[in-house]
């Protein structure tokens, strides 16, 4: 028996020369018959598992010492891409042919396995000798992975993939006069493309067969495809926002990119039917990763252009729609917020941009971001800087009110017509009534401090909330309305009444009550004027010139700028006095006080060589009337006569100088120009008043006065309680200072701005979040 055993080992060694570390083919190879006998003996002795293990062990050793090092030797860190291409090709070719030489050996092992009696526990043994072999090859190769192994792989695939992608185009765009091939960069008649594509597929096929494709070249191939995807996305999606790109991109992935994958995995064929399930799975996994990458790339591009997308909204709505879907699939909200904040800061919030443009951009941002994220969290995070910047601009409220009342189509005017109720964000809103069944959690990046107050309010509300109070807006509107009524002076109020009705639906009746009285004043003035003119005693006295008046209820109009009181010419003053008498007669116990500088005067001026019809302010009329009596005036003298400051008068004189009626002959001395010096002036020119300066005290001046009321309360509080955080101050003010009629409201943001200013003026100290009074 021992002899037989010894004999069998010799025979095994002869059948598997690898056991003696020899090259695969020895001279005295065992014949098929010899091997069949051996297999039979091995079966009888139940040695097949033993033989398999020992042979496999030796195969592993052989690969480790002789195959893997030879393979990796070729992986140089070379700069030469052509050399890299050749090296990788030959590395794969050599590896493949080396490993092919193991096939007879593997067949023999397979035979031994098939030949044995009992199948020893099938789970412990690899299903298939070839699979076991390939696993060993992979493991052994990868255990010796050199540092720069990707270098020649990159060279190979860069060249090959480029040619491959170009070979993909059914109609290659090689124009006639092109000397270089787009694919291989060789001269056209020398084109290597077909060859390269062949090598590309051959190499892939070999790697797939060895199951090395993904493990060895997966990274390189993926990053090359990524570059292709990136370029494609940039080419198709850059700078056009009015078309949705997601479906075209998905289609492109499904057709072009998928055809690449299928052809790579099938070694050149492009039909899926020929692919095994395993490969099809691999392709699908790959595709999913690429699809994710496609979305990520597209999202990034859209985020980079989000500022422009917002500015172009609503034309850019398709881009916003795309981005919304992308954000659900990718994790880029943080990037978006950071990016957009940065863009807003550098492109919008600086002194070079005027306030109406900032307001317009802000409105666009509100609309676009609400469309992007209906919870309002993105909007809140991104637009906070715009809000605080707008708060620092003096003309913000004015430009918002102006665009609210714009007659030409504007976003805000449209919003106003929608007529939703104003939602104030001062924390007082009771959202307990919300339907709890429809409750949705906030997105994870929501600011928890604001969570309970967040409501997706409409645009006008959002703008009003920049200051946290509607008082400023209502006051600004009142000033604007006053200016309009006083500059028109024609008793026509239809347009203003329409606006007021719209605003009342927004801000409520109470807030706009004053404005209602103002409009009623205009209406009443017309009636009173009619009554006065039909009064016989007034008519008996004969009007020197047609006179009418706008009669205001002083308590309801915003304060007027009245630094000085104009002294009108006597004939005018007498006429106005008569008007007052008539009014007193009509409305017993009431009288009128003229605002002499306000109003509108229609003059006809006859000069030696021309006649002028002109509408001017009372100041200008007064000036020119004085020149009727005396053709030369020193500024100072005239100033005394009409009770005006010289500086103001000098500015007013320029109007008549520009009309060619007056001339400054020497310093501050003006002379009437009876004869025209310029020939081209038409004698019947009707010239409009050039200045459109507001006659009202500015809204911010008025607000300042109101806030001073709070200041005395705040000083009192801080004297008693030492230091307080802003929320507490706000609460206390709401409790004590905002009671009773005519109470002033003050939102938290406005209060913060007010307090911060007091800090800058050293009237307050801020330490941590506590305000205190400086020690005096």
């Amino acid at each position, binding site marked *: 028996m021992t002899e037989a055993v010894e004999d069998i080992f010799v025979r095994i060694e002869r059948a598997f020369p690898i056991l003696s570390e020899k090259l695969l083919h020895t001279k005295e190879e065992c014949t098929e018959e010899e091997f069949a006998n051996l297999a039979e003996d091995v079966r009888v002795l139940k040695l097949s598992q033993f033989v398999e293990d020992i042979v496999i062990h030796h195969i592993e050793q052989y690969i480790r010492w002789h195959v893997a090092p030879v393979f990796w030797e070729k992986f140089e860190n070379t700069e030469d891409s052509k050399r890299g291409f050749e090296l990788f090709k030959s590395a794969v070719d050599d590896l493949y042919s080396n490993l092919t030489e193991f096939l007879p050996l593997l067949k023999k092992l397979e035979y031994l396995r098939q030949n044995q009696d009992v199948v020893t526990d099938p789970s412990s043994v690899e299903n298939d000798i070839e699979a076991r072999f390939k696993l060993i090859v992979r493991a052994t190769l990868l255990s010796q992975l050199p540092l720069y192994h990707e270098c020649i792989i990159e060279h190979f695939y860069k060249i090959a993939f480029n040619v491959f992608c170009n070979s993909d185009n059914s109609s290659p765009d090689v124009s006639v006069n092109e000397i270089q091939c787009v694919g291989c960069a060789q001269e056209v008649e020398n084109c290597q493309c077909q060859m390269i594509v062949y090598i590309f597929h051959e190499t892939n096929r070999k790697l797939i067969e060895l199951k090395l494709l993904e493990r060895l070249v997966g990274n390189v191939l993926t990053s090359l495809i990524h570059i292709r995807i990136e370029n494609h996305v940039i080419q198709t999606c850059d700078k056009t926002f009015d078309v949705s790109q997601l479906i075209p991109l998905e289609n492109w992935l499904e057709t072009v990119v998928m055809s690449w994958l299928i052809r790579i995995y099938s070694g050149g064929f492009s039909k899926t039917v020929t692919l095994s399930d395993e490969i099809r799975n691999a392709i699908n996994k790959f595709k999913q990763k690429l699809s994710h990458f496609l979305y990520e790339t597209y999202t990034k591009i859209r985020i980079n252009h989000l500022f422009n997308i917002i500015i172009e909204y609503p034309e850019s709505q398709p881009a916003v729609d795309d981005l919304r879907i992308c954000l659900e699939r990718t994790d880029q909200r943080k990037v978006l917020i950071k990016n957009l904040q940065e863009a807003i800061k550098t492109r919008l919030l600086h002194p070079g941009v005027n306030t109406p443009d900032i307001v317009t951009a802000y409105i666009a941002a509100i609309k676009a971001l609400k469309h992007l994220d209906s919870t309002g969290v993105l909007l809140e995070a991104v637009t906070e800087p715009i809000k605080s910047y707008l708060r620092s601009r003096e003309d913000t409220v004015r430009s918002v009110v102006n665009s609210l009342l714009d007659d030409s189509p504007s976003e805000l005017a449209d919003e106003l017509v929608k007529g939703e109720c104003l939602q104030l964000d001062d924390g007082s809103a009771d959202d307990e009534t919300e339907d709890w069944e429809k409750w949705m959690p906030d997105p994870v990046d929501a600011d928890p401090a604001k969570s309970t107050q967040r409501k997706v309010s409409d645009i006008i509300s959002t703008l009003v909330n920049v200051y946290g109070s509607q008082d400023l807006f209502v006051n600004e509107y009142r000033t604007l309305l006053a200016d309009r009524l*006083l500059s028109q*002076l024609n008793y026509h109020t239809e347009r203003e009444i329409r606006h007021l009705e719209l605003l009342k639906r927004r801000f409520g009746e109470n807030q706009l*009550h004053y404005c*209602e*009285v103002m409009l*009623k004043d205009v209406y*009443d003035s017309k009636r009173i004027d009619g009554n006065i003119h039909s009064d016989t005693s007034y008519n008996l006295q004969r009007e*020197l*010139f*047609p*006179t*009418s*008046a*706008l*009669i*205001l*209820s*002083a*308590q*309801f*109009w915003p304060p007027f700028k009245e630094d000085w009181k104009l002294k009108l010419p006597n004939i*005018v003053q007498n*006429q*106005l006095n008569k*008007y*007052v008498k008539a*009014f007193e007669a009509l*409305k017993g*116990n*009431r*009288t*009128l*006080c*003229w*605002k*002499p500088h*306000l*109003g*509108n*005067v*229609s*003059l*006809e*001026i*006859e*000069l030696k060589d021309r006649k002028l*019809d002109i509408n001017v302010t*009372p100041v200008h*009329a007064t000036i*020119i*009337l004085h*020149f*009727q009596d005396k*053709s030369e005036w020193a500024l100072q003298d005239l100033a005394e006569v009409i009770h005006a400051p010289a500086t103001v008068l000098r500015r007013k004189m320029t109007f008549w100088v520009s009309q060619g*009626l007056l001339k400054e002959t020497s310093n501050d001395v003006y002379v*009437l120009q*009876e004869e025209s010096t310029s020939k081209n002036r038409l004698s019947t020119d009707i010239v409009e008043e050039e200045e459109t300066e507001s006659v009202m005290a500015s809204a911010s001046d008025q607000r300042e006065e109101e806030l001073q009321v709070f200041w005395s309360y705040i000083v009192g509080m801080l004297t008693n309680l030492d230091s307080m955080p802003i929320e507490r101050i706000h609460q206390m003010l709401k409790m004590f200072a905002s009671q009773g*009629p005519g109470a002033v409201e003050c939102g938290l943001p406005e209060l913060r701005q007010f307090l911060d200013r007091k800090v800058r003026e050293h009237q307050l100290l801020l330490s941590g979040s506590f305000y205190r009074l400086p020690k005096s």
Partner: protein
Amino acid sequence: MKVTIKSWTGVATWRWIANDDNCGICRMPFDASCPDCKIPGDDCPLVWGQCSHCFHIHCIMKWLHSQQTSHICPMCRQEWKFKE
């Protein structure tokens, strides 16, 4: 030069001719309305007593209504009689 005024549109504010600025009852300016009214002037006129004090008509009426027995002026405590 001859300047002809073709028309003059002026701006004026109206006010009550009274010996005080505010109503002694509601403390609001006479030229504003009483707290119950929205529109000043014709809709919320003043009335004078023989004692020469005056009030928003709505204010003094409310005051007189609340006095059960005698009607006196809230300012000078003399008997209230409307000035003819």
